[in-house]
């Protein structure tokens, strides 16, 4: 599979349907994120990094598995940008590249320490179960 910045960016934008140029950099998504501290890259960074084409960094970060899929950032974004959809799209892109380190259901269980909310496990099982 192709891995050029252009290809990856276009794919993420196509899958998510998100236009990162609409972002006014208010940070409300990150202000509202319930799993902010666990994530290496925060919702607002997903938006600006996708815009800059830094998809591979995002794909290789655990942040894509740590998104709870609660959609609070999507719900509250004043500019209709939907950062949560970008996280989902990057995760999906990663998933499609089967030979890369895709997390299976068992790997997700390894995340299950007390700081990880239950909701994450539920979301992960939904997303990554075989």
């Amino acid at each position, binding site marked *: 599979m192709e891995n050029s910045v252009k290809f990856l960016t276009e794919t993420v934008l196509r899958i998510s349907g998100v236009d990162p140029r*609409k972002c*006014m*950099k*208010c*940070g*409300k*998504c*990150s*202000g*509202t*994120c319930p799993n*902010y*501290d666990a994530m290496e890259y*925060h919702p*607002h960074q997903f938006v600006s990094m996708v815009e800059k084409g830094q998809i591979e960094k995002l794909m290789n970060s655990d942040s894509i598995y740590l998104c709870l899929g609660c959609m*609070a950032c999507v719900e*509250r*974004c*004043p*500019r*209709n*940008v939907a950062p949560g959809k970008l996280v989902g799209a990057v995760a999906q892109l990663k998933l499609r590249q089967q030979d890369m380190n895709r997390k299976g259901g068992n790997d997700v269980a390894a995340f299950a320490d007390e700081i990880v909310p239950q909701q994450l496990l539920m979301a992960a099982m939904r997303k990554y179960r075989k």
Partner: protein
Amino acid sequence: MQKIGVFVCWCGSNIAGTVDVEAVAEAMKTVPGVVFSTHYQYMCSAAGQKLIADAIHEHHLDGIVVASCSPRMHENTFRKTAEAAGLNPYMVEIANIREQCSWIHKDKEEGTAKAIVLAKAAVAKLLHNKPLTAGTSAVTKRCLVIGGGIAGIQTALDVADAGYEVDIVEQRPTIGGRMAQLDKTFPTLDCSACILTPKMVEAAQNEKINIISYAKVEKVDGFVGNFRATIRKKARCVDETKCTGCSLYMNKCPSKKGKDEFNMEMNNRPAIYIPFAQAIPNVAVIDPEQCVKLKTGKCGLCQKVCTAGAIDYTQQDELMEREYGAIVVATGFKPIDPSPLNEYGYAENADVITSLELERLMNAAGPTKGTLLRPSDLKHPHEIVFIQCVGSRCDENTKRGKPYCSKICCMYTAKHAMLIRDKYPDTKVHVFYIDVRTPGKNFDEFYRRAVEQYGVDYIKGMVGKVAREGDKLMVRGSDLISNQQVEIAADLVVLATAIEPDPSARSIGTMLTASMDTNDFFTEAHAKLRPVESPTAGIFLSGVAQGPKDVPETVAQASAAAAKVIGLLAKDHLVTNPCVAGSDELLCNGCSQCEKVCPYGAITYVDKEVRGPGVREVRRVAQVNPAVCQGCGACTVTCPSGAMDLKGFTNQQIMAEVDAICL
């Protein structure tokens, strides 16, 4: 055969860059009726106009076509040029080869071909033009100002100063508007009431100004110079001529459940009340929703204590009809209701308030007599969070707020933060912001003072959630600069809510046929060059009704609107547009379709004896009042029998243009 001259303008390179103007001028020479054709660099310049005037004399032209910019720009210029050279001004046609041709084409060949077609269409129309003479209409030398806030007051004062009568119609029981509710004003921090109330008094004392409070404009007919308005003066149940404003009734009134609108409904008021101490007129009003006497017939306590005998429970709404030459819209604004933005918890928590509510909480005449106490338990707040852009700058598809910047919030938030830090130095103040916008004289200096001198903590980022925990409000937001999520345990949260036009604006706009934008702000006639006039003649815009602005900008616009009103009222007569509709009585079948579509009420029906070849009978036919008709043409396209025609734009002229383009 008419003698027509064609003048092709280069408009520098605006037209000549994409259109071969020489080729256009050359091509037009072969068009039937054209006896002279030329081109010039700037036809609108003095030299260009002289070229036209000379050609009219030399070639005895009886009509000219100027192929240039949009008629909105220079039609008037060329009509005057033609008139000065002895032509009827309505024998001038403009072929718009700039906006509708050169600016939108890249290919010179195509652009040139299209310019030739547009010029030919103009010639074809001109061949059917008839000289028209403009009539005149009188001007009623009185101005109506809708809204009695600082915008309306300033406009009224300036118009009255020039010697004209002004009526201010205010929907609330007092004038003063939003500015009366403010505690202090930025960037000088002077007391709002101290600078507003002298103006209110000045308006009340000015013998040219008539304040009609607790009233609304119900209907407006007519046209520039000759408006007729129907005003409903609501029943106050208090005789304005007798009431002394003594407030003796205040403690007697048994109803205490009315919400005090002036204090943003943060406390209750009696059913009979005066909104605030400096209200003008200083006359009580009875709230019919709350008055026990009006609801049950039993009570009448206020009537018993009133020594002036001013209380009259039987008072009815009064309708008055007045004539005006000009109307000024100064309907102002209100803050949005932030309840739907549920992450801020405004509806659930008494201690989440709007900035206008904070103004009242800090004001000596407010519900806490000027001591900053939070609404839930009346304790002094020690940690306060301000949130900016609440409901402003939102994408239109989110339905979460307004797409525009409300403009005043950055400055009033800095003001609030500074005032609180100054008066209560033990209080921590945080401001969540997206951008701090301070374009204005001494504005950025003001904001920097809040940060540097008063130690206000500005956090770049937005708040995602406000939730109550015990007696604290947990405010979670992002701090984008330090790339952290922060949580602040606050005692009070203040939302800098977006502002929106007053709810009355939409119906007033419809009544005046004054255009509005999608946010219900009134549209100006030209965004840059005619910012205080509505596109509807005789309607002027003052204050936030046109768009968000602060007090100095509002006052500036109010005076500008007044200057325009004075310019209109100073005229004894207005020249009317001769391009009005007319009905051919022989063709009219009296169907009333045109009367229904006419937005100006210019068409009436009369029974009239009609004489024509083989016809002599009494018929019901349409008649157009040329003084009221604005020449919109709605009737001409509606008329099923083709009896209606618009002078200067007859069906024949338009068909000739179409034929010239298509054949």
